[in-house]
C-alpha cells in the first residue's frame, strides 16, 4: 500500500499547479482548467482522509462525488460565460477583460 504522504504530496502539487496556473495563464479556458486541478486536489484529499479516518465509511467519497458534480455544472456556466465574452470581444484572454471596474 502506498504511503499517505505520497498521495498528499501529489495532491499538494496539483493544488499549487492549479494556483500557479490560475495566476499566470492568460486564457480563461486555461484558468478554468487550473480551477479543475485545485478542485481535484481537494477531492483526492477527501478520498484519502476518508480511508484513513473511517475505513468502513463513505462520507468523504460522497463529498468528492458532490464536488465533481458541482464542478461539472460550474464548467458549463463558465464556458457559457466565455462564449458570451468571445461574442463581445472576439477574444477570451483575461488581459482584455478589465472593463468590469469603477
Amino acid at each position, binding site marked *: 500500500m502506498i504511503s499517505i504522504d505520497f498521495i498528499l504530496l501529489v495532491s499538494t502539487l496539483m493544488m499549487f499547479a492549479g*494556483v500557479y496556473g*490560475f*495566476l*499566470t495563464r492568460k486564457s480563461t479556458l486555461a*484558468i478554468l482548467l487550473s480551477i479543475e486541478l485545485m478542485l481535484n486536489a481537494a477531492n483526492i484529499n477527501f478520498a484519502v482522509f476518508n480511508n484513513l479516518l473511517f475505513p468502513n465509511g463513505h462520507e468523504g467519497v460522497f463529498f468528492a462525488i458532490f464536488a465533481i458534480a458541482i464542478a461539472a455544472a460550474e464548467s458549463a456556466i463558465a464556458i457559457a460565460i466565455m462564449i458570451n465574452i468571445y461574442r463581445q470581444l472576439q477574444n477570451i484572454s*483575461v*488581459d482584455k*477583460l*478589465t*472593463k*468590469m*471596474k*469603477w
Partner: protein
Amino acid sequence: MSYTLFILLLPLISFLLIGIVDLDIPKTGKVWSHKVAGLIGTASLGIVTILSYTTAYQYFFCTPRLSDGTLPTLVPYNTTWLPLGDLHFDLGILLDPISVMMLIVISTVSLMVHIYSFGYMHGERGFQRYYAYLSLFTMSMLGLVVATNIFQMYLFWELVGVSSYLLIGFYYTTAPAIAASKKAFIVTRFADMFFLVGILIFGYYTQSFNFSFAGTVEYADNVAHFIPCNPETALVKNAAMTVLPISLVLMFIGGAGKSAMFPLHIWLPDAMEGPTPVSALIHAATMVVAGVFQIARMFPIWIEYAPQSLSIVVWVGAFTAFYAAAVACAQSDIKRVLAFSTISQIAFMMVALGVCLPGHGEHLNHSGLGYMASMFHLFTHAMFKACLFLGAGCIIHAVHSNEMALMGGLRKYMPITHWTFLISCLAIAGIPFFSGFSSKDEIVTACFQYSPWCGAWMTMVAAMTAFYMFRLYYGIFWGTENKEAHAHHTPHEAPWTMTLPLVVLSVITVGTGVVTTLGGFLHWEWASFGSIVSASGIPYTVHFDPVVASVSTVVAVCSILLATWIYKDEKQPIADKMYAAAPRLHRWAYKRFYMDEVYQFVTHRIIFARVSRPIAWFDRHVIDGFFDFLAWGTHKTSALIKGFQSGSVQTYAFWFFLGTLLLLLIMLF
C-alpha cells in the same frame, strides 16, 4: 336655533359644488356654466340671507331678555374640535347682538354682490371660479363673526385672507393683479403673526380661548347658555393682569393689518385690482371691518383689563383717518378714492371703540357710546360704501376706465347710478336723514366726551370726507365731460342686475337714516341702535347732542358747498389755482405720501440688503460649504483608492491568495 348651522354649511356646499364640479354639459358644446354657477351661488346665498334675517328676528324680538335687560348670548352649536389637556379649540356658533348684526350685514351685501356680478362679470373668463371664491369668502366671513372663541375666529380670519387673495388675483394674467394679491396676502399675514402670538399668550395665561375668561357652555331648554366664570380666579391665579394688555395689543396689530390701519394700510389701495364687486364685498363692507369686529369682540376684556391700551387704538385710528382722507383728496382713480375713503371710515370705527370709556354709576350706558357708535357705523358704512363701490363698478362698466379724467358729465347717461351714488355720498358726508349722519354723529359725540381735541380732529376729518366724496361725485357726474372719449363710446346705464343692488342698498341707507335721525332727535326707543347693541348690553335710547349734531351738519354742508364751488363747473379755475399754488403737496398726496416707497426702502434696502443677504451668504458659504467639503473629501478619497479595483481578475485572485496565506499563518502561529 340649530338652523343657524346652515348659514355656514350652505355657502360651503355651494363653494365645493361650483368649485369642483364641471357644470358644462359635455358634447353639447353649450357653455352655460356661468349661468348655472351664478344661480347656484346666488340661490344658496338667498337662503342664507333668509336664515340670517330669521335668526335676527328670533334673536332680537323673540328671545326673552335677561333680568338686567341685556340680550342673552346664545350658543346653539358648539363642539370640541381639538382637545389639548385643559385647553381646547372649539368650533361653534355664538349669537350675540354684534354677531347677529354682522350676519345681516354680510348676507345682505354678499347677496347684492352675487346678483350684481351677473351683470358685471358677464362673459368673463373664469366666471365659475369667481362664484366659487365668492361662496368661500362668504362662508369664511360668516364663520368669523359667529366664532365662539378667539381661535375659531383666527381660523376663519385666515380663510377670509385666502379668499381675499384669490379674488384680488382673479385676473391672474395681468401683472398688477398678481402683485396686488401677493402684497395683500403678505402684509396681512405679517400682521396676523402678531394676532397669533397674542392669541397664544392669551390662551396660555387665561387657560381659555373664550371671549370672556374661562367660560362654560350650559344647556337648558334646548338653548345653550354661555356662562363666563368668575374672572378673578382665572386672572389672579395666573397673574395675567400684566400680560393681558400685551396680548390684546398684539391682537390689535392683527386687526390693524386686516382693517388697513396705518402703517399696514398699503395693501388695500392695491387690492382694487380685483373685480369691483369683490372690492365692494371684501374691501369695503365686510372683510376689512374684521379688525374692528375683533376689537369689539374682545371689548369687555379691553375695557376691564387694558383700558389704557385703548389709547393706542385711538391714536392709530385718528392718524389713519386723517392720512387716508388727505390721500383721498388727491387721487384720480375712482376706486382708489373709495379705497382710501374706506380706510378713513374704518379708522372712524376704530377711534370710536378706542374712546369708549368704562362706565360707572348711572352713566353706565351712555359712557359706552363709542362702542355702539362704532358698530352702528360699521353697519351703515357697509351699506353705503358697498353701494358706492357697486356704483363705481357701473361707471367703470360704462366708460371702461377707472380714471376720473375719462368721466365727467355722466349724470345724463346713467340716471340710476347717479342718484344712488349721490345718496351714498350724502350718507358718507354725514347729512341728516341719511344713515351716515346718525352713526358718524355718535362717533364724533363719543370723541368729544373723550377729549375735545379728539372730537375736533374727527370733525375735521369728517369735513375732509365730505369734501373728497363730493370732489369724486362732481368729477364723475358733473365737471368737464370727456366728449372725445364719450363720442367714441357712448356711456350707457348698466343692466337691471347691476342697478337693482344699487337701489336696494340706497333704500336701506335712506331708510336707516330717516328712522334713526328722527329717532335720535325725538328719542324713539324702538328706533335706537343702542337698544340692540351697546357696550354693557343694557339697551338705551340714543339722544343726539344738539350742539355736536348741528356743528357736524354745518361742517359737512360747508365742505359739500366748497367742493361744489370748486369742482361742479366745466371750467375749474379754483382747482387749477390750488394745484398751481401747491404742486408738491398735491404730488405728495397723490403718491400717498410715499408710503409704498418707504416700505420698498425698508424691505429692500434695509431688511433684504442688510439682514437677509448676510444670512444668505452665511447659508451659502458656511452651511453649504461644510457639506460641500464632506462631499469633496469623499470624492478625493475614492479617487485615491479606486485604482485597486483594476478589473483584472488575476490581480484579485493574487490578493485573495495572499490573504488566505496570511490567515493561515495567523492560525498556525
